[in-house]
């Protein structure tokens, strides 16, 4: 059953909405879902549809950031040629 969002929705609606959001976020981050979780999303396709547009648009790569190495720590002198 598709549920529409409305302000002041019931706790169960909130729960569904939150769970859908969590599962969509998981997918966005590259994680796997259980078969029942996939089924949950199929069940609440309408909620999924509305939640998709509200997910953060930026890339959520969870890997560590690149970091530069400061090589210029000390001066070295070459032989005068």
């Amino acid at each position: 059953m598709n549920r529409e969002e409305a302000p002041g929705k019931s706790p169960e609606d909130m729960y569904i909405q939150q769970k859908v959001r969590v599962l969509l976020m998981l997918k966005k981050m590259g994680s796997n879902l259980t078969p029942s979780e996939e089924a949950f999303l199929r069940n609440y396709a309408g909620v999924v549809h509305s939640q998709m547009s509200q997910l953060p648009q930026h890339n959520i790569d969870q890997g560590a950031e690149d970091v530069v190495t400061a090589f210029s720590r000390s001066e070295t002198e070459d032989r005068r040629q």
Partner: protein
Amino acid sequence: LSAVSEADSMIKVAEWQQTYYASDSGIHSGATTVRDDESSTDYSGRKKWHYHISKESSYIITSIFPESQLDLDTQFSLTRAQRVRAAMFPETLVEGEAAMPVQPDPTQQSNVQRLAEPSHLLKTAIVHLINYQDDELATRAVPELTKLLADDDPVVVNKAAMIVNQLTRKEASRRVLVQSPAVVGAVVRAMTVAADMETTRCTASVLHSLSHQKEGLLAIFKSGGIPALVRMLSSPVESVLFYAITTLHNLLLHQEGAKMAVRLADGLQRMVPLLKKSNPKFLAITTDCLQLLSYGNQESKLIILANGGPESLVFIMRNYNYEKLLWTTSRVLKVLSVCPSNKPAIVEAGGMQALGQHLTGSSQRLIQNCLWTLRNLSDAATKQEGLDGLLQILVTQLGSDDVNMLTCATGILSNLTCNNSRNKTLVTQFGGVEALIHAVLRAGEKEDVAEPAVCALRHLTSRHQDAELAQNAVRLHYGIPAIIKLLGQPHYWPIVKATVGLIRNLALCPANQAPLRETGAIPRLVNLLLKAHQDTQRHASSAQQTYQDGVRMEEIVEGCTGALHIMARAPINRGEIAGMQTIPLFVQLLYSYVENVKRVAAGVLCELALDKQSAELIDAEGASAPLMELLHSNNEGIATYAAAVLFRISEDKSSDYRKRVSVELTHSLFKHDPAAWEMAHSAVPLEHTYLADELDASYPPYGYAELPLDTLPLDPELHEAYIPDMTYDPTLRPVFSREQFPLL
């Protein structure tokens, strides 16, 4: 005496006259302006000298041109010294050394008589000094010259300067000069006050000649020559500039104390503008001076920066071909490249591109200097554009066997691919992955090569359009075994840290999961994790962060767990990871004070919880409490993983438990508000609805307890029958709580 024939003498003088006339035009005019005023005692002595020269001209003529009717024996009975002394200082003749009379033959005139100029006689005396190398005479002449150099009459000074200049041309007379600080000082002063360019040029030339001997350098240094020479750097006369810079160069090279003196005399401020000149040899000397002055001296480097040094130096690298100049300039840039203020200026002036122009020539010393400089600059150049050509050359250089070249190429590539998706894509397309793998294989024990190479591979395997290509390329070029090997003992922690980060990225590619597992990545990662974690526990009580090889063990914990998290996406790997009894440790890590550690721990638990058995283990370890806490995290990743784990471990739990989870979620930042997500991502702290302490107590009251089961959502899971003995017991605490390990 017999060695000097008449003919030789004549030839010598004729030749000398020619060269002298060719190079100089002053003495003629100078000579005729000698004053006749005899009233002033100051001048009288000197005048007398000149006068006597004129008067005694006949003697000199006699000695050089014995074609007169003088008796040869008489002529040669006086020593050379006596003859010239007689000519120059007749008053000093001792008894018995009679001045030789001349019986001029009116029918015959000597060559010099024919010239009939007093100046020629002066020159002739100099010929004696030069050709016959009489030390005693030189010693007498020198004090005289010293006085003349200080004369008020600029013409006199000019003449004296020219004489001194001539004296410097011959070794013996030069040696006499350098041993007289007085005359060197007089030259310096004459140079400083000279009104005419010719005197300036001449005196500068003198100092230049003297600067080729140690004694000369010392004499110049002691006489205040350095400030005077620095002033000459502002001269509009090119030859003066040349003499000045070359002399200063010799001083900087060989005279102790010269560097400090040049700096004190504001030498740098005068030299940097000279970089705009166009003579390559002049520029080479100037840049070498700058290098000598600024090596190891931070203040000098800042002065060069303040005077526009970086721009001028980069201009030279871009526009000249003279190898020596390019080499000296690259050395200055190398010296400046370790200065945090100069670095960005050099990069902004196009230094990376300019240095990159010279990596494929034939001068090894130039290539190496450019590479070291590029390496130093590279961490300030991650946002530079137009480095395509440089990147390609560097990838090619990864094939070198020269360890210096490899060290630089890997280091520069590592930094230039840092957070720069365009550079990452370019390097991948240039075949960088394969080249870097070969560099790792060839590096062996050399950490200076291996570490940046692995970092570069780590950069290439994430966060750009060809990341997946790069991840596959590592496997296809047989990189995985070589990379896993880097985790072995002895541990060099910076390499271990870079390698686990690379493994994490490689595991993003599903095709890599099996090869990684098969080469034993999982046990190695788990063992490293245990070792690092134990280390952090050991130091937990001291509240001190410990570093090993400059790496904190918390970073290793984070890196290994992060790699295991991604590897756990493959079902077989999940089983192997859980099978190594890692779940209790991961649950413990949820209490870490390091946010990234919490994230990767929640992440790996999230993947492991896909397996029912693991989910139960996770629950049995008391993960619920810290996970509930993590629902409130500002970090959306953490909150998501925490929620997912709770969902997965609550599948078989009571509805009350599931309700609890949903309430926590509802009251967390997972609000129906996209802005809240964005804010969470930008780490703006928001108020927590629930405080941590409340979780340890009994259930906080919430308003949904009276909801009958049949009004719960149509989620099939939630319609499962309530099982009394699976109620969540809040009094069951996790084995390791935050109070016990506050510093986790």
